[in-house]
Every structure is written in C-alpha cells, then in structure tokens.
C-alpha cells in the first residue's frame, strides 16, 4: 500500500435490504489533505462515513483507513482516527477539563500526557477562565472548537468532521477553519462534510455524492472549470439537480 494514501476506497457498497445507500464508491485521500465530502441530504454521505470510521459493515468492496481494513480491523481504525459531529461532541454536564480528561482516558493516554495536553489545549483555545465550567454553559462556537481539539487529543492520523460548523457564527466558523488548516499543515488528514459551499472552497479536493455514487471529485478550481460554474454552490446545484 502507498504510505501517502491514508484512505483507500474501492467499489465500497452498502445495501439496506434492496436499497443501495452507497453504490460502489472509489477514491483515495492523501496524508495531510483536507478532503471535502459533499452531497445532498440522503445522498449516502453519513452511511459512507460510518463505514470508514468502522461502525457500519460494508456490503461489498474494499477500503482501508489509516492502513486498517474496514471489514476486519475496525477496532484499530477507531484508535487511529478522531471524530466529531455537530450532534455528538462533548458531555454537557462535565466541565471543560473533565471532558478533556475523559476523552484522553478513553484513548488510553497516560495521566501525565493528559495533564500536558489539557494545559496546552486550554491555553491555545483561550479557555483558562472557563476550564472548570460545565461545557453545556459554553456558546456553541466554543464547544465546537473544543470538540475539534479533543478529537485530536490522541494525535490521530485522520480526523472525520461531520458538519462541524452548522449554526456557528461566521467569525467562529472561520476560526474553526483556521484550526483545520493548522491540523492539516501538521500532517493530519481532514475528512469533512459541510452544507456551507464557501467551506467547500477551503478543501484541497472535494467529492460530491448523488444518489449513493460519487459523481464528481477534484480540486474546487477544476470542478468549477469542469461545470463552468462561478463557485462551488453552482457546481453543487448543477450536479445534485441533474
């Protein structure tokens, strides 16, 4: 296997009864790449992502994530990736510090390491004043930034972000993307879904799923050329509307 390809997917398919949710998708993602995974509601993004993070068994095809097989090595996959979504992020009734400690513990970090991570993280995010505040009392934008940092606590090779910025104010949304750039710059691969088409432009490459299939995959620049569109929103509308 090519070491630079941290996700390799070939003909990956998922059926529910006679409904094909994900229909033989094929793509690779390289180390340190920001890969945008787009598609309309119901196109199969979430199902595809669940297979890649090892919580849903594919019907057929092949895929490796961080070098591990999605059929046989799902536990290794889970240890080597980070995950955050808009819906599940952190525990509202634990404090900022407790959440960091909890997730550090889950990923098997030593007490010393957790303490170190916790201190740098709180410092970097400017959360010192609220370190002992319940997460539930923080503004959504802060929660999402903290949640992203926590998803990186075990230095995963890949982080999966499922609509991380939904409903977040525009300034915080941009700060969030600066964190994504930073992580990618340090070699972490970022696999991200979003409904904000301006965010699609921030990705190195973008794939667009329509009815279970990947109908387009390229850099935002090339996709715009290919579909003769002014921006990614137009690309999306042209593709998803057929």
């Amino acid at each position: 296997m090519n070491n630079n390809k941290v996700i390799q997917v070939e003909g990956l398919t998922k059926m529910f009864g006679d409904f094909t949710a994900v229909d033989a998708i094929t793509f690779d993602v390289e180390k340190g790449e920001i890969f945008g995974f787009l598609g309309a509601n119901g196109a199969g993004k979430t199902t595809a992502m669940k297979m890649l993070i090892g919580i849903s068994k594919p019907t057929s095809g092949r895929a490796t994530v961080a070098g591990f097989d999605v059929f046989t090595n799902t536990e290794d996959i889970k240890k080597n990736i980070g995950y955050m979504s808009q819906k599940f992020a952190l525990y509202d009734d634990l404090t900022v510090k407790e959440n960091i400690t909890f997730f550090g513990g889950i990923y098997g970090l030593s007490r010393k390491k957790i303490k170190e991570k916790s201190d740098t993280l709180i410092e970097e995010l400017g959360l010192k004043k609220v370190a002992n505040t319940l997460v539930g009392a923080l503004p959504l934008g802060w929660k999402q930034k903290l949640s992203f940092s926590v998803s990186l606590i075990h230095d995963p090779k890949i982080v999966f972000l499922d609509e991380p910025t939904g409903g977040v104010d525009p300034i915080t949304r941009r700060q969030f993307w600066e964190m994504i750039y930073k992580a990618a710059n340090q070699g972490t691969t970022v696999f991200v879904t979003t409904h904000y088409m301006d965010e699609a432009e921030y990705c190195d490459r973008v794939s667009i799923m329509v009815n279970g299939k990947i109908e387009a995959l390229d850099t935002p620049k090339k996709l715009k050329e290919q579909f003769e569109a002014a921006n990614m929103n137009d690309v999306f509308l042209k593709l998803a509307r057929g």
Partner: protein
Amino acid sequence: MSITVSNISKSYKKVKALKDISFEVKPAELFGLIGPDGAGKTTLFRILTTLLIANEGNATVAGYEVVTDYKKIRNSVGYMPGKFSLYQDLTVEENLNFFATIFGTTIEENYDLIKDIYVQIEPFKNRRAGKLSGGMKQKLALCCALIHKPKVLFLDEPTTGVDPVSRKEFWEMLKRLQQKDITILVSTPYMDEAALCDRIALIQDGKILQIDTPEAIVKHYPKQIYNVRANNMYQLINSLNEYEHNHSVYPFGEFVHYTDSRTDFNPEDLKVYLESKNLTIVEIEKTEATIEDTFMELAK
C-alpha cells in the same frame, strides 16, 4: 403592521437571551432574522407565538397583543419550530388531517395554499412522518403550519442542516407564499439566504445589530474590501493576521477578504509584504461586501 416588537427583553436565570429588541414587519413582507445559534432567535419566536412571556416590552402579531390576546394569535399564525415537532407515528396524511381538524378546517378547504408543496410529498402520504427524509419532513411541517391559512407564518431555521438544493427549493416556495398575502418571519444561520428576504435583522447575543434591506446593509459597509489570493491559503491567512496594518482578515471561499486600517492603503505594499513571506502568485483585487462581511464587522 403584521408584527410589532417594542423593547422586548427576556432572561433565563443568569442568561439575557433578548436585550431590548424592537422592529416591525409589514403585511406580506418576507422578513429574515439572521444570526448564529444562541443569538436569541428561537426565544423571540416563542414570545411572538405566545409560548413564552417576555420580561419587558410588548409585541403584537396580526393586530393582537401577545399576552392578552394569545388565543386569537394562535388561530391566526402558523409556526414551524426548528425541531421537527409533528407526530412521528402518524402518517403524512394523518398529520395534515390532524392539524386541519384542530383548527376547525379541512385539507380540501385550503388545498390551493399547500398544493405546490403537498404534491411533492403526496406519493408518500401513507408513510409515517418519522420515516421521512429530512427534506420531506420539512415540507410536511410547512404544510401543517399552513393548513389553516394563517395570516402570519413563523419559520424557525427551516433550512438548518439542509443541503443547498433543498434550501433553494424551500426559498422558492416561500416567495410563492408571499404572493398569497402571508407575512413571513423566518430565521436562518445561513447568511447567503439573507439576500432573498425583503428586509433583514442581523442578530447576535440577544441584540439587533442592524435592520434594513439586504442591499442597503451591504451598501453601508464602512470599508473597501480586497480579495486576496496566493499559492498557500494557510500561510496567507497567517501572514495577513500578522500584518500590522490589517483591520480584518476572513477566509471567503477561494479568497481571503482583507480590509486595511489605513485610509491611504496601497495594495502594492501588501503584495510586497506577502511576497517577503515567501508567498507566490499573490493577487489583490477590490471586491464588494456581502451580508456576511457586514455581520462580522458589526459583531467584531
């Protein structure tokens, strides 16, 4: 006026959710409340739909006072909450029938109002609401909010988490409803949808930052914005953030929107600076402000 809001404030324990909010919505106007989660949009909706009582101020909807005339308001308005609130184990048709009956009407009586929308979900009319896709749930919820022919329609984040295609279709539906003399108050965290409203209020942390037409809001942006692009986005953002003369630096799609703090700003100076930071293919061009630029400038 279809809606008047005068000096409304509301607190939950320590949190001030709304701080002295005032605005008016004209008959058949499509008015947008634009702001992120936690801005106070839902609290305002709940006050106007008589589900919550404000601490201070007063408001009227369709000519009725929200506290004393709450029963009349409930008969005159349609409300689609942000969270899907129909009966998951009733079918599409049963839900619609249920809401029609509650309001003393029938599906047939106001069918013309919902027809455009209902035909899209009619093939699934025997499916339980809980088994519908997100887009279909949203359409059903809109039908249920319209079935008694309300004078005022409240839509709390109807497009959150919805893909761009379905969002576009939803806004086309709203435009058609407006033609039928329904006043619409809609909230959204998507700034690009603001341009589709007649007038908008930008709201953050319980305060209204500005109210105007989308065109006027953009026109009043105080500075010249420049689109900046270079070979490496991450380094470009970092370098611009370190630049001592910057006023604002915000990534916008393939560009960074940059404003300078000096009145005699020369883009060439910036280009020289960026090239000294080892950036190449540097492009700097003037561009127009968007609603999102204005929002960020006001929220700063």
